[in-house]
């Protein structure tokens, strides 16, 4: 039995090759990608389930601060019954960045007992940044659990006020908000030191956009 674990750190301007993961019975995969400021990139990830009982987890973070164009595309196909997919992509767009998320889940006819989840949360920090998100579900079987959620918004001012009233400077409060917004995406990384290293890199990116 194979087990995929991939982490893509995108911090230099290059395009990722299309990642196509085919999962047989009982196989597990985990893909995490992190897009750091200053990089325009296309991220296409496709997953095909060909055997029952397989699981995939897709995690993504983006932090943009200039004129970046980031296009994220996920395509998860539940061709057989009893598989689980879970997607979580969170990101922050500042400057005049333009981010698109096209997420797709297809549950084929007969792929019963499928569980497919997808979340995409975006924070728009500046007036000239833009976020377009299209989370799509195509479902051809009835005994399934599928849901998706997408939000686009700004940092919560009540939270900022709470922190500031307790003596945390405004800028620091915003950093804390953004860290807590992005941190759950990294939970999938098992290697503790790798996780530590990437968390530090994310924090650095967040500080750089303020």
């Amino acid at each position: 039995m194979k087990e995929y674990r991939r982490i893509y750190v995108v911090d230099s301007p290059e395009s990722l090759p299309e990642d196509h993961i085919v999962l047989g019975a009982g196989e597990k995969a985990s893909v995490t990608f992190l897009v750091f400021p200053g990089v325009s990139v296309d991220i296409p990830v496709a997953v095909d389930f060909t055997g029952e009982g397989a699981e995939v987890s897709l995690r993504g973070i983006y932090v943009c601060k200039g004129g970046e164009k980031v296009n994220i595309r996920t395509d998860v196909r539940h061709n057989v019954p009893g598989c689980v997919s879970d997607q979580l992509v969170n990101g922050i767009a500042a400057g005049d960045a333009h981010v698109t998320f096209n997420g797709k889940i297809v549950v084929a006819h007969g792929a019963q007992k499928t569980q497919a989840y997808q979340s995409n949360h975006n924070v728009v920090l500046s007036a000239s940044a833009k976020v377009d998100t299209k989370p799509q579900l195509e479902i051809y079987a009835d005994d399934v659990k599928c849901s998706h959620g997408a939000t686009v918004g700004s940092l919560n001012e009540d939270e900022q006020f709470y922190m500031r009233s307790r003596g945390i400077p405004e800028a620091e409060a915003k950093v804390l908000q953004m860290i807590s917004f992005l941190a759950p995406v990294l939970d999938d990384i098992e290697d503790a030191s790798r996780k530590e290293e990437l968390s530090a890199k994310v924090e650095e990116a967040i500080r750089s956009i303020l």
Partner: protein
Amino acid sequence: MDIQEENKIIKDFTSQEYKEGFVTDVEQVFVPKGLNEDIIRTISRLKEEPQWLLDFRLDAFRRWQKMPMPTWGHLDMPEIDFQDIIYYAAPKKDKDRPKEIDPELEKTFEKLGIPIREREALAGVVAVDAVFDSVSVATTFRKTLAEKGIIFCPFSEAVREHGDLVRKYLASVVPVGDNFYAALNSAVFSDGSFCYIPKGVKCPMDLSSYFRINASGTGQFERTLIVAEEGSSLSYMEGCTAPMRDENQLHAAVVEIVVEKDADVRYSTVQNWYPGDAMGRGGILNLVTKRGICKGEGAHLSWTQVETGSAITWKYPSTILKGDYSSSEFYSVAVTNNYQQADTGTKMIHIGRGTRSRIVSKGISAGHSQNSYRGLVKMLPGATGARNFSQCDSLLIGSDCGAHTFPDIQSANPDAVVEHEATTSKISEDQLFYCNQRGIDPEDAVGLIVNGYAKEVLSRLPMEFAVEAQKLLQVSLEGSVG
């Protein structure tokens, strides 16, 4: 109504198929089959239209000819031969009784439960504009409404008597070249309703249009225009049915709504066109463009739709939120059974500051049907403090149907908040078992559960419509379990 009586009604309904599927035998006037500039001139002449409207139609036709048929819907659309359709059909006027309604037509609407004579209806008074194929045959309570300055009349009459108003607002919300079917409608539209509520007037009764397709081989192209001036309010209802036929019939309507400052418009639809038979033969192709604009500050527009009919539904009632702090809602229940296909949803375009919108869509698919929600929420750079919440739930009944969600969220404002969530579920065996165990048979249990699931939307409908909609849900899902 006690429970027994209510159960009897539900029983009656579940034991019959599409009951509006009859044909009325009246003599009708047709224009020849096909579509060209001569046909458009003929329609315009038959309706005694002014030159500007003929020019408007011809311009639309020329644009339509250059447009491709849209294919982006999640629909398996049959080939439509636009030259094989009769674009105008009207019941012949009786020369002896030019002022009266043909008793056959009256019987038809009576049978459909549409009061075309003025009388007290179940939950109060409703003014009705009844449209039969390409013409309006009766509009009730016009005098009562006129006393308040409200204009409610067939579209053709509005063109003759309120030409300036029609000319000012026609195509101001849905431009001629907006899309393929809107352009087609602009070229050949027949009748529909025109409604004008003057400044500060609260419409004293619900207004309603009822559309009936009768003639075979025809299409219906109605056009509705609603204008609500500053501070006015209106509740508008729309219903429709058609005979059962093995061929597909085309229905391409355009509805435009203009809502001025602080005005409030509620637009409710119960769409019950013939859905085709259990094998997917025949049925109406319902390809409709509906759009409203909240022009002034604090304007409010609410769409509520219950879609149970049509072989194919392609419909996206939308709102342009232009006025600051204007708001809009979209509540929808779409039911598909057998081989029906629905691709429906909404567009909320936020332009003004502090605009708010809410979308609640409940899709129910059964049999071999496909049911899609497609929606756009767009926050423009000026929409500071704007907010949207969308919720799309799908319920699947049976393993051969499909439920799909295609939302599109575009935000270009850091102070706008958009939230979307969607879930998919089926009727759980536990729920069914619970009902069965208490003596409710499976079919009724499904009806009960579905009604509960759709309650949030049904409760938004005007009372009379809500009763009809609940019954319709039950009929539409007949035979989908077991």
